């Protein structure tokens, strides 16, 4: 890590959320009597930043650390090392001045309350992310209630309003239902409503459509986009589906085993993928057009778990372009190869 300190994308201080060198490891096989000797490097030295109203897609195969990044950003997990700084409305900076950048580790107590109002998360699984014993009203009003926003009556109005916004109308028929009385698509709408009811500035959406059927998926995607544009919300959209990311995000970051290997504007990334992993990923996505012929992705071997990975390019074992140089040197630095197009690879 110390060998190649990443070049943080410029103007880091300006961003709504700036991440630099973010790392999170999970111990393997730790027990009451044994200290862990090896670690899963779930997120390893990740840097990016997000501006207000921006949308970034985080794409990668299962287990590459997407959800972990999301949870770190909403402070559900603490980083092993690295910095996340926020610049959120109402959050006072280190020097006490309004709206100055503030480090994640410094957000405690009263600041944490404000933080929870400004930063929200939509979870992957609409079936498990709602308490089955609580009504839709309780679920959506929870952030309002625990943060003491409004009276009970105000909250009923606010919840009804947001239900209409996410297309669950008339709200009266939904307010006092339980989650099991809704379809998957309706539940995911409730999850969105709950994240948006506090009017956050930044939302992490963790594969909000991966468990939904085709019919509900498009609806949710369109809804998220309209709302984000309408309310000026910045979001990190976690997904394993590049086609979905294309529709949801301005920029896409491709992750491989805990590392971001490429980051660029969406259309630029699709048209001009530089990293060999991005290329493989792109050429593996099926296209809903029978006349389109894809080349087989050039990638060898299978995905492994990032348990104590060797100090070289994470993609080395599977890379079609790998050289001796790649073998003998640490993981390549994340560099801007074209304006706004960041890649971590020696060969491009």
């Amino acid at each position, binding site marked *: 890590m110390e060998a190649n300190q990443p070049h943080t994308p410029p103007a880091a201080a300006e961003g709504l959320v700036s991440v630099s060198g973010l790392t999170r490891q999970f111990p393997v096989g730790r027990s009451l009597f044994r200290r862990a000797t090896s670690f899963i490097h779930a997120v390893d030295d990740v840097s990016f930043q997000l501006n207000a109203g921006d949308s970034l897609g985080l794409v990668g195969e299962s287990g590459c650390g997407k959800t972990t990044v999301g949870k770190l950003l909403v402070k559900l997990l603490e980083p092993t090392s690295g910095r996340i700084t926020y610049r959120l409305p109402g959050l006072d900076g280190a020097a006490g001045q309004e709206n100055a950048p503030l480090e994640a580790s410094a957000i405690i107590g009263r600041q944490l309350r404000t933080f929870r109002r400004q930063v929200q998360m939509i979870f992957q699984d609409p*079936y498990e992310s709602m308490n089955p014993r609580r009504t839709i009203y309780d679920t959506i009003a929870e952030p309002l209630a625990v943060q003491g926003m409004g009276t009970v009556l105000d909250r009923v109005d606010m919840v009804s309003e947001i239900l209409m916004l996410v297309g669950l109308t008339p*709200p009266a028929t939904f307010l006092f239902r339980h989650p099991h009385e809704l379809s998957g698509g309706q539940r995911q709408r409730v999850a969105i409503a709950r994240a948006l009811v506090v009017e956050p500035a930044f939302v992490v959406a963790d594969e909000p459509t991966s468990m939904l059927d085709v019919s509900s998926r498009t609806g949710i995607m369109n809804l998220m986009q309209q709302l984000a544009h309408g309310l000026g919300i910045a979001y990190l959209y976690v997904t394993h589906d590049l086609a979905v990311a294309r529709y949801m995000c301005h920029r896409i970051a491709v992750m491989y085993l805990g590392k971001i290997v490429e980051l660029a504007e969406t259309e630029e990334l699709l048209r001009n993928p530089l990293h060999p992993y991005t290329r493989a990923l792109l050429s593996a996505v099926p296209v809903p057009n029978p006349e389109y012929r894809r080349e087989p992705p050039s990638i060898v071997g299978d995905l492994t778990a990032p348990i104590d990975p060797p100090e070289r390019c994470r993609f080395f074992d599977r890379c079609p372009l790998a050289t001796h140089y790649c073998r003998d040197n640490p993981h390549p630095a994340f560099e801007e190869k074209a304006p706004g197009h960041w890649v971590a690879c020696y060969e491009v």
Partner: protein
Amino acid sequence: MITPPNFPPPGSASDPPVVEVGHSRLRLLIARTRLALHSFRAGWSIFMESRIGVLSLVIIGVFAIMAVAHPILMLTIWDAETYDPVTGYAFDQVDQPSAPSWRHPLGTDPLGRDVLSQLLWSTRSEFVLGITAALVTVAIATTVGAVSAYYGGLVDVFFMRLADLIIALPGISLLIVLSALFKLNLFYLALVIGILGGFGGTAIILKSQALSIKVKPYIEAARVAGGGHFHIIFVHIIPNLLPLSLLYMMFTVTSAIFAEAVLSFLGLLDLRMSWGIMIHTANTGGYLMGGTRYWWLVVPAGASITLLCSAFYLGGRALDEVVNPRLRRRHD
């Protein structure tokens, strides 16, 4: 892609009531009450569908009527001198114990007291004992389970080792020692059983359930919403534990009644009268040896213990079906 579970068709009995949102607190209250009633009714109908549930309710109902019947009978047709369960004496009978007769439907005991009166009088104390013990157990076990699952670490280690310790001690013998040391009346007995149950095995079971709740995504969602520890434990974990708690409450009633019977049989409790004492009286008089000749001294009390214990146990099993969505889904 995960196939969504089958939802009941629209218009089925489980459709929730449409709740009008008004602008007054009263409206909100009414809406919530209707909702609570609705889910209660849904649960009730599942409970009533299981035969053992109905059976257990009927048995418990009969015993409840028996408990209520005693004071009424004493006020109306039974005079205290003859029928008091402890101090009464059946002067109308020559031999004691006397066989069932018109005046004494279940006969009298060796001390000339009416067996039916004893039986009915004891029913009430059994209910009080069972329910007190169960409430204490559940209150303790739910809190201990939720707290040690949520905090983990030393808190967890402490409560779990304590539970292991209590499990390792054989329950009845511990009660025997305690009752020898202290004069245990009904209330203290209930308390002791409740505490032993609450910090013992029930806590472990509820903790393992709480652990599975703790890792649910909705707990993380609550944290993102800004909920603190207290909020998460009392709003999310405990309400989801309650169904299981309720189940163990039923089972605790069973074990409390059973423990009372054993201790009374051994003559260790400071009670006026109970089903256990009735059998104890028969035993000390040597009437248990005589085969079925003096059946009325043993069978009514013995059968009552068995029936009421099993009724609560079966009720618990039926409740299991109501509160366990995995079992419930089969009904769809």
